[in-house]
C-alpha cells in the first residue's frame, strides 16, 4: 500500500465532489434527507401513539369523575342501571383471577423453563419450544370457548355450585400466561454464563444443586421480570375471562372458598357493557375510566419490568 501524504489527501478530498455532477448529488441528498426524516418519524411514532391512546382514554373517561362522586366508586355494588358504579367488585374480580393465575402459572412456568434450559435433551427441546410458541398463538377466544364448554362443566362436577368461577378464569388465564413466563425465564437462565455451571459441577455439585444454588440465584432478576410480564398479561386478558368467570359483580355474599365464586373483572365489564351504552353517557365515561385504570396498571408493570431488564443488562455489561 502506498503512503498517502496529507497533501495528497487534501487534493483527493477536494477532487472527489466534482466527480459527481452537482445536480445529481443535490437530488440524492434531498431524497435521502426526506427518507431519513420519514424513518425518524416512524421511529418516534411509538411515543406519539402511546400518548394518543392515553389522551383519548382521558378525553372520554375523565367526565366520569365529574359525574360520579369519588365516594360512589367505593360502593360495593356495580349496577349501572341504578347509577351504582362501585369499582371495588371489579377490582376484586381482576385481582382475584390474576392472583389465581399467577399462583398457577409462575411455578409451572419457571419449572418448565428450567426443564427446557437445563435438563431436556436438544432434540426434545426442539420439539417442545415450537409447541409452547403454538400455545402462545392460540387465540384467547378459543381457550375461552374450551373453558366454557369443557372446563366449566368439569369444575361444576367437582363440587362447585357453578362452573363459571374465579378458579375457572384463573386456570385459563394461567395457562395463557405460561408462554410469556416460560420464554422470558428461559432467556434469563440462558444468560447465566456456562462457566457458573461448569464450576459448580466441577467441584462435585449435582445437577439439581447447580440449578438451585447457582443458576437460579444468577437468573433472579430475569425470573422476576418473567413473573411481572405474566401478571401484566393476565390483568389485561378479556375474552376468555369474560366467558368463564360468570361475570357477577358481587362481593356481598362470599363463598367459603372465594375462588369458587363467580366474579367480574374490569376487562370483562368494558367488553360486555360498552356495546350497549349511549355514547357520552355517564356509564360510557365510567367504562373509559376503567380503561384508564387498566392502562395505568399495565403501564406501571411493564415500565418496572423494563427497568429491571435495563439494569440487569447494564450491570452485566460493566462486569464482563
Amino acid at each position: 500500500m502506498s503512503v498517502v501524504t496529507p497533501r495528497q489527501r487534501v487534493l483527493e478530498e477536494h477532487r472527489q465532489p466534482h466527480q459527481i455532477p452537482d445536480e445529481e448529488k443535490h437530488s440524492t441528498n434531498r431524497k435521502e434527507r426526506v427518507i431519513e426524516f420519514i424513518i425518524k418519524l416512524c421511529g418516534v411514532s411509538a411515543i406519539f401513539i402511546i400518548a394518543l391512546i392515553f389522551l383519548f382514554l382521558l378525553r372520554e373517561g375523565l367526565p366520569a369523575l365529574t359525574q360520579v362522586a369519588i365516594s360512589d366508586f367505593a360502593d360495593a355494588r356495580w349496577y349501572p342501571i341504578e347509577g351504582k358504579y362501585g369499582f371495588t367488585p371489579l377490582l376484586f374480580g381482576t385481582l382475584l383471577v390474576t392472583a389465581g393465575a399467577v399462583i398457577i402459572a409462575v411455578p409451572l412456568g419457571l419449572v418448565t423453563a428450567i426443564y427446557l434450559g437445563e435438563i431436556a435433551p436438544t432434540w426434545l427441546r426442539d420439539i417442545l419450544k415450537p409447541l409452547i410458541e403454538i400455545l402462545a398463538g392460540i387465540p384467547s377466544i378459543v381457550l375461552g370457548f374450551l373453558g366454557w364448554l369443557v372446563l366449566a362443566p368439569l369444575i361444576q362436577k367437582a363440587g362447585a355450585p357453578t362452573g363459571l368461577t374465579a378458579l375457572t378464569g384463573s386456570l385459563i388465564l394461567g395457562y395463557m400466561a405460561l408462554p410469556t413466563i416460560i420464554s422470558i425465564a428461559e432467556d434469563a437462565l440462558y444468560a447465566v454464563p456456562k462457566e457458573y455451571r461448569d464450576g459448580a459441577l466441577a467441584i462435585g455439585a449435582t445437577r439439581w444443586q447447580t440449578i438451585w444454588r447457582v443458576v437460579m440465584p444468577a437468573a433472579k432478576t430475569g425470573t422476576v421480570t418473567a413473573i411481572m410480564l405474566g401478571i401484566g398479561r393476565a390483568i389485561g386478558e378479556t375474552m376468555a375471562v369474560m366467558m368463564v368467570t360468570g361475570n357477577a359483580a358481587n362481593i356481598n355474599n362470599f363463598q367459603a372458598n372465594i375462588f369458587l365464586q363467580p366474579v367480574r373483572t374490569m376487562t370483562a365489564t368494558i367488553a360486555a357493557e360498552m356495546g350497549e351504552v349511549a355514547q357520552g353517557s355517564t356509564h360510557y365515561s365510567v367504562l373509559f375510566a376503567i380503561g384508564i385504570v387498566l392502562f395505568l396498571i399495565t403501564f406501571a408493570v411493564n415500565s418496572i419490568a423494563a427497568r429491571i431488564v435495563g439494569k440487569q443488562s447494564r450491570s452485566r455489561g460493566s462486569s464482563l
Partner: protein
Amino acid sequence: MTAERRNNIATILITLVAAVVVIPIVFVIAFVIIQGMGMISWEFITSAPTNGMREGGIGPALLGTILLTLGTAIVAMPLAIGAAIYLAEYAPNNWVTRQVRLAIVNLAGIPSIVYGLFGLGMFVLFLGTGTSILAGSLTLGLMTLPVVISTAEEAILSVPPEFRTVSLSLGATKWQTIRNHVLPHATPGIITGVILGLSRAAGETAPILFTVAAFYLPELPKSIMDQTMALPYHLYVISTQVPGMPTEIQYATALVLLLVVLLLTTFATIVRTIMRRRREW
C-alpha cells in the same frame, strides 16, 4: 437423603411438571380438531350462516377476518418497518431512544380491550369512521406494531456490520447502503415478524368489539367503511349469545380460527427456518 438421590427426585419432578404444561397443548389442539373436523367442508367455510346462525357456514366471518388481517398489514407494515430501520440503523444511544424503546414495551403491554376503547374513541367517534373495516384495521394495526417492530429490528441487526462498512466505503450513502445491502438480507426476518404479528391480530376479539365486528351480517362488505363479521367475534357470539347452538358448528368455527392462526404462524416459522439455512454468512 443423599445429594444424588435428591438430584434424581428433582429431575423427575421437573420433568413431570414440564409434561403437565406441554401435554395439554397437544390435547387442546387435537380435541378441537377431532370435534370440529366433521363439519368442515368447502360449503361451511364459504356459505353464510342461516336460521339465526344455527345452520349454514361461516363465509362472511372468515372473509371479514381475512380483510381485517390485510388491513392490519397495510396499517402496521410501513410504520413498523420504518421504526425498526430507525432503531437498528439510526437511533443514537440517548434519552429519546430509551423512551422510544420504553414506549414500544408499553404498547406491547396495553390490554387489547384498551386498544378497543382507543379505537372507539379516536377512529369510530372522533375521526368519524363509524364502526368499519377501516377503524378495525387501524386499531388492530396499532396493536400489532410492537411485535413487528421488535422482530424486524432483530432481523435488520442480524445483517453483519461488514456489509454496511463495505458499502459505505465504496461511496454509497447511508440510505443506499440500507436499501441495497441491509434490507434485502433482512427481508425474510421482517416477513416473519409481520406474519407473526398478523397471526395475533387475526385471532383477537377485544379490539374489534366496538370498532368493526358485526353480530350478524350475512351480506359481504362493499367498502372499507362497512362493518363486517369476524371469526373470533363470531365464535364468541355463537358460543355464548345464541341459545340452542349446535356444538359441532361451534367446534368447527373454533377449528377454522385455530387453523387460520396456526397456518400463519407455521408459515412464519418456515420462512425463518429457510432464512437461517440460506444465510451465506
